[in-house]
């Protein structure tokens, strides 16, 4: 990490010189602490491996749905898909490289089990994949399309926004493509750079007619994915790719559903509400622990889970209780989904607010390659924003 700490040192000097106004957000020892590794780690230039910016925190095992098995995120996805294909004879899975198991192993074994006419590869054509999926769904079959990385979803944007989202409306409910689910790996991964790290949920949040869902863990992922597949509206299911292997939990083997458009209060608190989704939930969990330990502040943590339509009630109820709200996501600040939450909450809970709503997000730049540690809204940035809110 020597190389990174050199840059961190330079950054601190920059800050001291007041040179870069843009970097004024990065304050204090927090930044230095996250990057100055112990000296021994710094010596070997060859081992510049990054430490992840979060620690996955599994939820306690639930016995509610029967026997559970230890699964990581991609295994829980496979389990959900397996359950779907078993239950629903019209269900098909398609996308680039899904047949051999997928580049993230989410579809391993499914082709062997269900046959090549139910699990098949498509050529390299995202617009074609989604359009084709819409066609399948319109006839009533269940289409589960995979877009290999969320960064590649943009050729399909027209199909999703103009076709899938509007089908039911424009045909007066004669037709719909509700049985379409699009799955896609999402979010930062440590080395993804511009085109393997994006979080495009905000683009789709602006589109009435679809649902966008993002799980934080294997247990959540399976339940939410099954709900998406069974939901009568076209759904986009973003899977945090950094959690595919890193997140391990006890997940029920049998199918179960977690309701959409319901946020979950993971931890109750009284002083600040923290809202996030996907990987970032684990970051704010740590922030909450830090706040409790260092500031004696009690945080209420909410995992939004469904981006649209989002659970306004849960978030507002929480803000009415605490009076402070911090929202955090990896996607760039401007136009990110935090802006929507912020806007709605200030409309609904204006007189309850003790401090301006805080958004800790990625910067308004393309997702960088070597600057990733500086870009992501890590726990230090969140903690800093929280502290300011408390002291407002």
């Amino acid at each position, binding site marked *: 990490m020597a190389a990174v700490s050199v*840059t961190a040192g330079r950054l601190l000097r920059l800050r001291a010189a007041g040179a870069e106004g843009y*970097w004024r957000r990065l304050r204090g020892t927090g930044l230095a602490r996250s990057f100055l590794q112990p000296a021994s780690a710094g010596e070997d230039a060859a081992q510049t491996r990054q430490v992840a910016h979060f620690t996955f925190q599994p939820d306690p095992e639930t016995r509610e749905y029967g026997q559970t098995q230890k699964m990581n995120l991609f295994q829980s996805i496979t389990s959900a898909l397996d359950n779907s294909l078993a239950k629903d004879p019209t269900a098909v899975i398609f996308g*680039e490289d899904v047949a051999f198991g997928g580049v993230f192993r989410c579809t391993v074994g499914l082709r062997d089990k269900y046959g090549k006419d139910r699990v098949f*590869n498509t050529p390299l054509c995202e617009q074609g994949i989604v359009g084709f999926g819409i066609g399948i769904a319109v006839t009533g079959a269940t289409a589960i399309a995979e877009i290999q990385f969320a960064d590649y979803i*943009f050729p399909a944007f027209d199909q999703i926004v103009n076709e899938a989202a509007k089908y039911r409306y424009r045909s007066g409910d004669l037709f719909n493509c509700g049985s379409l689910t699009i799955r896609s790996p999402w979010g930062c991964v440590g080395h993804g750079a511009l085109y393997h790290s994006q979080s495009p949920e905000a683009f789709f949040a602006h589109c009435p007619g679809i649902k966008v869902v993002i799980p934080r863990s294997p247990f959540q992922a399976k339940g939410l994915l099954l709900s998406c597949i069974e939901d009568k509206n076209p759904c986009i299911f973003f899977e945090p790719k950094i959690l595919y292997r890193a997140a391990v939990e006890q997940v029920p083997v049998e199918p179960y559903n977690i309701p959409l458009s319901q946020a979950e209060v993971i931890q109750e608190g009284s002083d600040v509400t923290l809202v996030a989704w996907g990987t970032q939930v684990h970051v704010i969990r740590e922030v909450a622990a830090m706040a409790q330990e260092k500031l004696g502040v009690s945080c209420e943590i909410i995992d939004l889970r469904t981006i649209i339509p989002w659970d306004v009630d849960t978030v507002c109820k929480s803000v009415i209780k605490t009076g402070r709200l911090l929202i955090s996501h990896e996607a760039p600040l401007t136009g990110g989904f935090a802006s929507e939450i912020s806007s709605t909450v200030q409309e609904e809970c204006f007189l309850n607010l003790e401090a301006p709503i805080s958004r800790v997000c990625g910067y308004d730049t393309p997702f960088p390659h070597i600057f990733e540690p500086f870009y992501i809204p890590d726990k230090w940035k969140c903690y800093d924003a929280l502290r300011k809110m408390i002291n407002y």
Partner: protein
Amino acid sequence: MRKMLAAVSRVLSGAAQKPASRVLVASRNFANDATFEIKKCDLHRLEEGPPVTTVLTREDGLKYYRMMQTVRRMELKADQLYKQKIIRGFCHLCDGQEACCVGLEAGINPTDHLITAYRAHGFTFTRGLSVREILAELTGRRGGCAKGKGGSMHMYAKNFYGGNGIVGAQVPLGAGIALACKYNGKDEVCLTLYGDGAANQGQIFEAYNMAALWKLPCIFICENNRYGMGTSVERAAASTDYYKRGDFIPGLRVDGMDILCVREATRFAAAYCRSGKGPILMELQTYRYHGHSMSDPGVSYRTREEIQEVRSKSDPIMLLKDRMVNSNLASVEELKEIDVEVRQGVSSSSSFGTQITLPPV
């Protein structure tokens, strides 16, 4: 005149060298050039194609050999650095495809334009950047060609527009560059490259249509290395005759492992475009030894035997070397010397590349 210069240079090189083998080499009489037969290209909507014989001069031969060897060594060095985690992120190597980048460059002028996808290190070199700048960019250092901020997929140079991560997105861009060429009236062409996987993207066909409609001087080039990531061409494409996929655009299929074939085809295609007849499509049949990227071992969808077979029968560097040695354009020792020089050059570039500073935040 050329014979005299060659003789003078031989004497000088002989005089300057210390190792005895060099003196031996310098005293041999090499041919100045040789004529080679090259494979006839399959044609689509073309009455005639590139010539089936070509003349290679000793000077050009040595230049191509050195360039291809440099690309090969540079890619292998990148492989090594990636495994040492000095290069991170994504890294797509083009060893095996050297005849494409060097051959294309040999057929065009430096003032022509080129745009390609992410397997771009070879093109970055042939378009004029140094190995040092490329390796520094790969390792994210400030001395890199994109100041360390672009990495493997985003390298740019004069008249080289990258280096593009999103598959197929560079093709309409290439058509746009060709429009600019036509508009500026400087007789330049644009080489727009894409792979066999990208050939199934919708925007490629949009670009074909616009280029043909407006007669843009665009040479569409499909680098068909038989696999789109892990999917073989037969499993991805309804028609694997990529040179015909432009339909109303004439096309030719070229042996992409033979640098002379690539060069002649490129010259032919460039002349076609410069004459104002509109776009043309070239399919280069080539092969990559590495997997799709450094995260892909490259053996789960093809056999090691297949890779070995291509290496032993069709390696572009080997083919050129055999041709040159058998026609007395160069000696084995001379080419070995070039190998050694190239190796040392790449080595020193890489150590430079890993030592210079990171870009400022």
